């Protein structure tokens, strides 16, 4: 069955505002990655977490393996943040076998 449940499926923000994306896992995951797919279809690495939180500019991500979730917070959204965001999680087997969420389509409006 599906192991990664990502929400929301779509999100619209005005420039300067923020929100959070979330992935819930139906099983214990060892690590999570967050990606943004740009207009050319390339997967851009945002974060890799095995635990705790990481911050990079206006983005912040958290991963709680025990509670089985990860979040991606965006603050002060800019037009160029628009795109599709994916979480992908790896179970305890440590083989790089990622299970992807369905993605969140983020649209940032002026």
């Amino acid at each position: 069955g599906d192991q990664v449940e990502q929400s929301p499926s779509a999100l619209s923000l005005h420039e300067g505002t923020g929100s959070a994306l979330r992935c819930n896992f139906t099983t214990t995951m060892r690590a999570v990655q967050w990606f943004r797919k740009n207009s050319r279809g390339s997967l851009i690495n945002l974060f890799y977490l095995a635990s705790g939180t990481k911050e990079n500019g206006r983005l912040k991500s958290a991963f709680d393996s025990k509670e089985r979730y990860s979040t991606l917070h965006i603050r002060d959204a800019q037009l160029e943040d628009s795109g599709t965001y994916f979480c992908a999680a790896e179970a305890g087997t440590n083989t790089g076998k990622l299970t992807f969420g369905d993605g969140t389509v983020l649209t940032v409006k002026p």
Partner: protein
Amino acid sequence: GPKVLQIPSHQIIDMGQMVTLNCDPVSNHLYFYWYKQILGQQMEFLVNFYNGKVMEKSKLFKDQFSVERPDGSYFTLKIQPTALEDSAVYFCASSLPNERLFFGHGTKLSVL
């Protein structure tokens, strides 16, 4: 940042033919992967490869599929023979142990 290159970006072939998808992984990476994404669906794991061997493969990795990386050159995915349901975008990725995966831009395979 580190880049994974995939060649070609699009390949069109007739059903039954053989196709080889090429991937140039990040130079110091040790683990290599192929993922498959059918239009409108999630990206799904096919296979991983380390030290010259397949470590794990999914049920999507049919008997017609094979991977290799001869002499540290391209990491390849070969499909022989191809079927209509093999039409998809195939993504290559590479990584170091216990670190993030870096993905290529994908090769769109169209089987006619």
